[in-house]
């Protein structure tokens, strides 16, 4: 039998992108904004989200989708604050995708919400390739990880709408150059905001809250 060559030029992640667009459209219908928070493990995502919820929960209704390889430690921490926290366990997978996000969104009462945070699996590589349907991407880089990360993992910083430099309270102990860092990010991604914060002490968090409020009122 003869073989035949099919020219397809098919983007293999187009199915994920379509599911992501569906998620965004559903959120828009209910006037909910979703933020995809990405970082390496241990950068302080959960602590930062916890402080954000404590400061904003009287002003807006928040839910959190927690992505983890296993366990529900993070979702348990968030639930204690009195907001809905849905756990997605990827079962070894290193990132969330739009279909996993859609399944979690089905369990949310979107009509009652203003803002959904997705705490993605801690990973600076794999998470960057999967649109989840969020309106904005927030990337957290903590000071102890070092200021060279945009060179090593450029993609995640290219797609960020805001880069939060976390653990700024310990910067004196590290060689992280906060004077030049914003320039490195803006070189790669002129639209991104760069905000130094400490999820622990609360330093700088007002600028992050202001950024979120702008997203919510838009």
């Amino acid at each position, binding site marked *: *039998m*003869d*073989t*035949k*060559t*099919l*020219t*397809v*030029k*098919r*983007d*293999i*992640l*187009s*199915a*994920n992108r379509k599911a992501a667009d569906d998620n965004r459209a559903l959120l828009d219908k209910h006037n909910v904004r979703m933020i995809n928070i990405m970082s390496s493990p241990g950068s302080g995502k959960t602590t930062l989200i916890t402080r954000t919820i404590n400061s904003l929960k009287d002003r807006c209704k928040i839910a959190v989708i927690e992505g983890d390889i296993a366990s529900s430690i993070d979702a348990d921490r968030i639930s204690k604050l009195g907001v809905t926290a849905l756990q997605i366990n990827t079962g*070894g*997978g*290193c*990132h969330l*995708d739009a279909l996993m996000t859609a399944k979690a969104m089905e369990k949310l009462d979107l009509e009652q919400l203003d803002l959904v945070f997705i705490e993605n699996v801690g990973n600076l*590589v*794999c998470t960057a*390739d999967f649109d989840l349907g969020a309106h904005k991407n927030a990337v957290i880089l903590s000071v102890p990880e070092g200021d*060279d990360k945009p*060179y*090593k993992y*450029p*993609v995640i910083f*290219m797609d960020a709408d805001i880069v939060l430099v976390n653990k700024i309270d310990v910067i004196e102990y590290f060689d992280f150059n906060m004077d030049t860092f914003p*320039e*490195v990010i*803006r*070189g*790669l991604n*002129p639209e991104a905001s760069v905000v130094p914060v400490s999820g622990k002490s609360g330093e700088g968090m007002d600028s992050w809250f202001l950024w979120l409020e702008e997203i919510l009122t838009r």
Partner: protein
Amino acid sequence: MHEQSIVSYLLSAALEDAQKDNAERIISIKLVVGELTGVEKDAVDFYFGFMSKGTIAEGASIEYEFTKPQLRCRECDIIFPRKDLFFNCPQCSKKAVEMVGGRELYIESMEII
């Protein structure tokens, strides 16, 4: 290590297109992979081997074309390859660069029966 999910997307896309053409089998798939996606050939082959079992793609070979990102200086507008870890433009030495390409992940073509 996101090849498991990448392969599951690759397989569904390949099967859908092959079945549309009433293919009996997929012999080979030509895949274009941008280096920035971090997708590894060996891991894709490994997952494809067992995930394709029992489908018309079982036994198909994957031919890879890897593409490298280029950098475009936002000041000088020149396009240059990335030489080291840093992004500095060879002309103005600033690092205001846009990455061009290197994020591709698509099936270029397939050989089917």
